[in-house]
Each structure stands twice: as structure tokens, then as C-alpha cells.
């Protein structure tokens, strides 16, 4: 049944349904409502878990690492500067192959200071060795959170559930919260093969020489690549129980015979979908490609989604200054293996909370019609006349 819930409130309820043993968090906008709602669930006796209010994000990540290693299902949430502060621990968690779940309420990274939404934070820890799943709406955030625990525990890899800050976390909309029975049916009790136990002592996080390091890294990489199957399988399995799919690795919307594709990541999907619904009937058909799994990066699934396209717009919410797009470069590399790869156009939109209006669709289409130079990167919507000459 649909309930009118704020995204953060819904995610808090989803986390609670997964019966975590330990939660640790440090407040940061726009993640705060998630942990506030969880704290309330704990205070009201709805959730029986150890809630550790830590003194920094660095410790939040460390506490959940210690907890998961000691055999408890663990959860944390953060954003922006918090993700940056956690960065060292994030690498450590994944390198130790510890299953836990983190919600990233996506936000820009300072400086200049912006508390608003883009995806610079999670993109900046792209190489931390975590599974990264991006949510297009709050229903997906709920369903992906539940799936994330299962994926993490099946693959022994940490999962970062990325949801756009404010745009999702602070939006009240209709969300179906599954029942405890549904979640229990899907998510078994926490088990971890390497949980620390005095009856069977092991040492973890040890020093490793050049003789073994490459093999450890290969295993980690391979585990992430293999996780593609788990991500798809869990989405389907949860769909059998909940009746909803979240889009596996990659999903598409719109005309399958379209010659123009737009690949998006996160909540801008909804706005583009609305723009397509509203588009005049004589407008050229467009296929939307929603990238849900950024890590592992699903090369095959992306190529399949791009088949038949002449032009592919990659629309992203972060950038690598001095390089350009982050997702765009990876998609370009992925489609280079196709027999007839589409021409790629890479734009970053909505930085630091800039609104992405419905008119983005016609403007993008106009842009690639008028400027067919491929493989160019551009930050969309920059008002160049506000900048000094040398910065234009």
C-alpha cells in the first residue's frame, strides 16, 4: 500500500526491517533525516539495535566495520564531506571484504561549500571497491536498501546505496513499505564466513607482501565483476516478493527503435521520463537508459542497451576537473567494443543542486543536432558571461 512518506523516513523504515544489529552515524546534511528517523525507531522500541552516535564519519565507518567483522549486520549513512572523511575506511572495508550497507545521500563536495545535490561524493570514491547502486526514486531507494544487505552478504562486498540528496531524501511521495514478513522471507539472518570468534580465532587486516598483493586485488576485482549476477538475481528475487523491480544493472525506458539514447544515473531519470511523456508526438523518439549499478560497471548490459543507437547522450551529476565526465568516459570505453557504437555526447548537469527542468530534454536534443562533434564534454547550463574571460 502506498504511503505518503519522506524519502529519508522510508529508507529508515527499510533499514529497520532488515534487522541491523549495529548502526553508527554522524550527522551531515542531507543524510540527517535518515539517522534521525532510525534513532526515533530505536527510541520508540521499534528497532532493537546498538545505535552508536559517533564523533565523526571516520569513526562511523570504522564502527560498522568493527561490528560487521565481529558478526553483526551493520549500517551507516553519510554524504559529501562525510564520504570524503570516510574514504580511507571505505577502501579498508572493501579490501577486507566485509558485508555492510551505507546510504550515500548524494551531495556536492566543498569547496565552494554546497549542501545541495550532485553526485561528486560517491563518484569520488568510485575506486574504493564498493558496489555502488544509484536510485531513481524513493521506492527504488527502499527496495535497493533491502536488496543491498542481501547482495552484500552474498558477495562479502560492501554496498553503497546512492540516493540524490534533497531531491529524494527530502521529498515526500507515495512509497510502498514492505512488510516485515516480506523482508524476512527475502533476507536471512546475518552470517559472515570470517566473523571474529574466540572459539576459532583468525587474524584479519594483516600485512601482505608483494608476493600476494596482486592476487588479493585480483580477487577483489573479480568479486565485484561477479557481483553483477547477484545484483540482477536479487532484484528479480525481491520482485517476486514485492512485485517491483528496481532495474537490475541497467534498464531502459522509451522507444526501443530510437536512434537517440540518453544514459542517466539517479533521480534525473524521473524528470526526463516526464519530459518524454510530455514531448510533442512529432519529436524524435528517445530511449532512456538508467544506469543503476555503477560499480560493478556493467559493460555488457550497457552495450546491449545501446544497440541500434546513432547518438548517445551521457548525462551525469559530477565531474573530474581537468578530465571531464566520469560516467561518460567509462561508457565511451564500454561501447568502443560494439560493432556500431553510437556517437557519444557527455554532459554534466545539476551541479550543487541546480534545478534540472523538463526543458532539459529539448535543449539536449537541440544541442546534439546543432553541435554534432562527438566525445565532447560540457557542463550544461553554465552562464559563461558571469565568469571572467580567462575562465570561459
Amino acid at each position, binding site marked *: 500500500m502506498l504511503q505518503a512518506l519522506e524519502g529519508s523516513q522510508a529508507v529508515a523504515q527499510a533499514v529497520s526491517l532488515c534487522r541491523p*544489529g549495529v548502526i553508527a552515524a554522524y550527522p551531515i546534511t542531507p543524510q540527517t533525516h535518515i539517522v534521525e528517523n532510525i534513532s526515533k525507531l530505536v527510541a520508540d522500541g521499534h528497532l532493537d*539495535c546498538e545505535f552508536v552516535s559517533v*564523533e565523526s564519519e571516520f569513526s562511523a565507518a570504522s*564502527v560498522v566495520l*568493527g*561490528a560487521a567483522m565481529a558478526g*553483526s549486520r551493520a549500517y551507516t549513512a553519510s554524504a559529501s564531506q562525510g564520504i570524503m572523511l570516510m574514504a580511507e575506511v571505505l577502501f579498508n572495508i572493501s579490501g577486507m571484504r566485509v558485508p555492510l550497507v551505507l546510504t550515500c545521500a548524494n551531495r556536492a563536495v566543498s569547496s565552494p561549500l554546497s549542501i545541495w545535490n550532485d553526485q561528486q561524493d560517491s563518484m569520488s570514491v568510485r575506486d574504493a571497491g564498493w558496489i555502488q547502486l544509484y536510485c531513481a526514486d524513493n521506492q527504488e531507494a527502499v527496495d535497493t536498501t533491502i536488496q543491498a544487505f542481501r547482495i552484500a552478504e552474498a558477495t562479502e562486498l560492501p554496498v553503497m546505496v546512492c540516493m540524490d540528496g534533497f531531491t529524494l531524501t527530502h521529498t515526500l511521495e507515495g512509497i510502498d513499505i514492505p512488510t516485515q514478513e516480506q523482508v524476512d522471507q527475502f533476507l536471512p539472518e546475518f552470517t559472515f564466513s570470517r566473523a571474529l570468534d574466540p572459539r576459532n580465532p*583468525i587474524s584479519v587486516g594483516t600485512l601482505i607482501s608483494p608476493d600476494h598483493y596482486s592476487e588479493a586485488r585480483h580477487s577483489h576485482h573479480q568479486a565485484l565483476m561477479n557481483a553483477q549476477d547477484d545484483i540482477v538475481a536479487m532484484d528479480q528475487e525481491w520482485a517476486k516478493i514485492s512485485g517491483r523491480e528496481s532495474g537490475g544493472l541497467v534498464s531502459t525506458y522509451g522507444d526501443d527503435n530510437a536512434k537517440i539514447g540518453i544514459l542517466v544515473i539517479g533521480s534525473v531519470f524521473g524528470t526526463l521520463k516526464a519530459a518524454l511523456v510530455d514531448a510533442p508526438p512529432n519529436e524524435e523518439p528517445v530511449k532512456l537508459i538508467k544506469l543503476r549499478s555503477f560499480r560493478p560497471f556493467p559493460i555488457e548490459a550497457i552495450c546491449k542497451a545501446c544497440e541500434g543507437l546513432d547518438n548517445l547522450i551521457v548525462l551525469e551529476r559530477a565531474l573530474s576537473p581537468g578530465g571531464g565526465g566520469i560516467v561518460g568516459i567509462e561508457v565511451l570505453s564500454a561501447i568502443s567494443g560494439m560493432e556500431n557504437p553510437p556517437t557519444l555526447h557527455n554532459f554534466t548537469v545539476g551541479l550543487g543542486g541546480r534545478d534540472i527542468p523538463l526543458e532539459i530534454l529539448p535543449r539536449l536534443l537541440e544541442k546534439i543536432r546543432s553541435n554534432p562533434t562527438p566525445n565532447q564534454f560540457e557542463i550544461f547550463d553554465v552562464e559563461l558571461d558571469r565568469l571572467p574571460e580567462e575562465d570561459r
Partner: protein
Amino acid sequence: MNAEVNIPVADLRSKQPRFRGMESGHRACLGCGEALAARLVMESAGPDVMLANATGCLEIFTTPWPESAWRVPWMHSLFENTGAIASGMEAAMKAQGKATKVIAMGGDGGTFDIGFQALSGMLERGHNVMYVCYDNEAYMNTGIQRSSSTPHAAMTTTSPPGKARMGKRHLKKDIVSIVSAHHIPYAATTSVAYPSDIRKKVRRAMEIDGPTFLQIHCPCPLGWGHEGDKSIEVARLAVETGLFPMIELERGGLVGAVPIRHPKPVEDYLQKQQRFRHLFTEDVRAQQELEHIQAIANYNIEIYGLLGDGQDNFDNEGMDTVKRGGLRWG
């Protein structure tokens, strides 16, 4: 005593096998104070424990993969998050309804400096963790750089003496007071030269359901510049001069200090270590620094009452007593 039991004294040790949480065969330097102290701590802590170990010598020399010296569950995460890792382990034990005691271990760098915030958080939140700091007074793992625990005037690779400097310019951070100011149930300092004192304090800390802290003074022969077979002697002199007082604090208040009765001059301690050799030159500043260091020792002696106030013979917690192992079962 049961008169029937007759075990030759020489066999006592082998007949009473002790639990060895940390095995021999690790790769510590000879004379390593930290390795010995860690072994003593683990013996007293027993098997039902779980360890969070900061980055540092102890972590490196005990776990060159695929080998490990640990016989208890042991985890190393990072340099600066040991207090938080231990907090998480403890929260998990609570969540699972288990009684396994969580122990955190770090060096002075990982405790006084980079891991200080995580430690403070752990103490403030009241986690049931025994935090053990092996204090060898510098970043030994990276090759002897000064930390906030390095004593005044000591030479390290980043506090070298020269024309303009006489070693470290600043004072050693009073970590146990800072830790104790969190009003935790128990905080204590001890030294690897006094195994009985270590055992006693570990047992005391292990019994407490709440955060406890032990600072163990451990010589590093390489970093301090003395032979490996002099570690215990040097460590003992640090205590006997008053430079490293062995004290106990409960809820922020001083409850005990091991009396030293007849303090030795600080030169006795300093002279045995290359890290202080620049203090034994003709340089007038050297004499001044020796006076400064003696003043530090005098201050410790005064504020902790290290001279004691009774007769040596009736002490139950004096230097001689702990040296003889008199408090082993205390």
C-alpha cells in the same frame, strides 16, 4: 596448602601452562619492549577476547601474511580508527548478547596523535573496551619520528639536535590525565619492567564493564639507542627516576601510585640511551636541558607522592614489591 602436592620449583612453570594469546616466532626486533608487554597483557587477558590493533610495529611484526602470532580473534584496520573499530566490535558483542571482552591496542602515535579522536569518542560513549597503549615515545614503525609522546629533548629523526635545537622542543603529552578526564572507571600507567604490575592492572581493567585505559612504557632499543638486552633496565630506570610514574586513576581521580622511595637522578636513565646523548656534551644548553628533565621528574615525584609516606618494609605496593613479583596474584 595441600602437603601431598610436591612439585619441584623448577617445574612450576611448565606445570602451569599459561594462556599465550600472542605466540613467539613473530618478527619483532630483539629486546622489543612492546612485544614483551603485549605478550604479558594477552596472558593476563585470557582467551575470551577480541582484538582491534592499530597500524604500527605490533601489527606489522605479528602478522606477515599468511602467518600470525595471534591466538585470539585479531583485527587490524587502520592507524587512526582503533578506538572506533573496538567500539563497533563491542556494540556487536552487545547486540549478540556475548560477553567476549574487546581489547584495543595501539602505539603512542596511534593513541596520542592520529587515533586520539577515535579514542576519545570510544571513552566518552562508555564502550566496554580495554584500550592498551604501548608507549615507546616515537613513531618507531616508520623509523623513529617524534610523536606527542616523545619526551622533552629526545632526539628522533624529526627532532634532531643541532646548532639551533636540542632535540624535541615540546613536552611529552600527559595522555593518561587526558584520558582520565573522560571520567572513565579506570586508567593506569605501567611499565614493561614490572610484569606483575602489568598483570595486576590488566586484570583490574578486564573486570570492569566500561572503558579502561592502560599506558605501558616500552623501550624500543632501535629508537632509544640502547642494546636489546638493556630494555628492562632502561624501562626500570624511567620509573625509578620519576620520569615515568606508575599510577592508577578512577573516574578522573588519582587512586594509587607505585612509590619509588629513593629516586635516582635522571642522568642515570638518560645516559643509557643514544637519543639523549646530545645532553651529555660541553654545550651549556645540554646542562640546561638536563635540569629541565630533572625538574619534570621532581614534579612527577611531588604531585604523585612517589616518595611514599611509610616504611619500605611494610609497603604492599612499593617498587621492591612489584620487582619481586609480590603482587602477581594480587
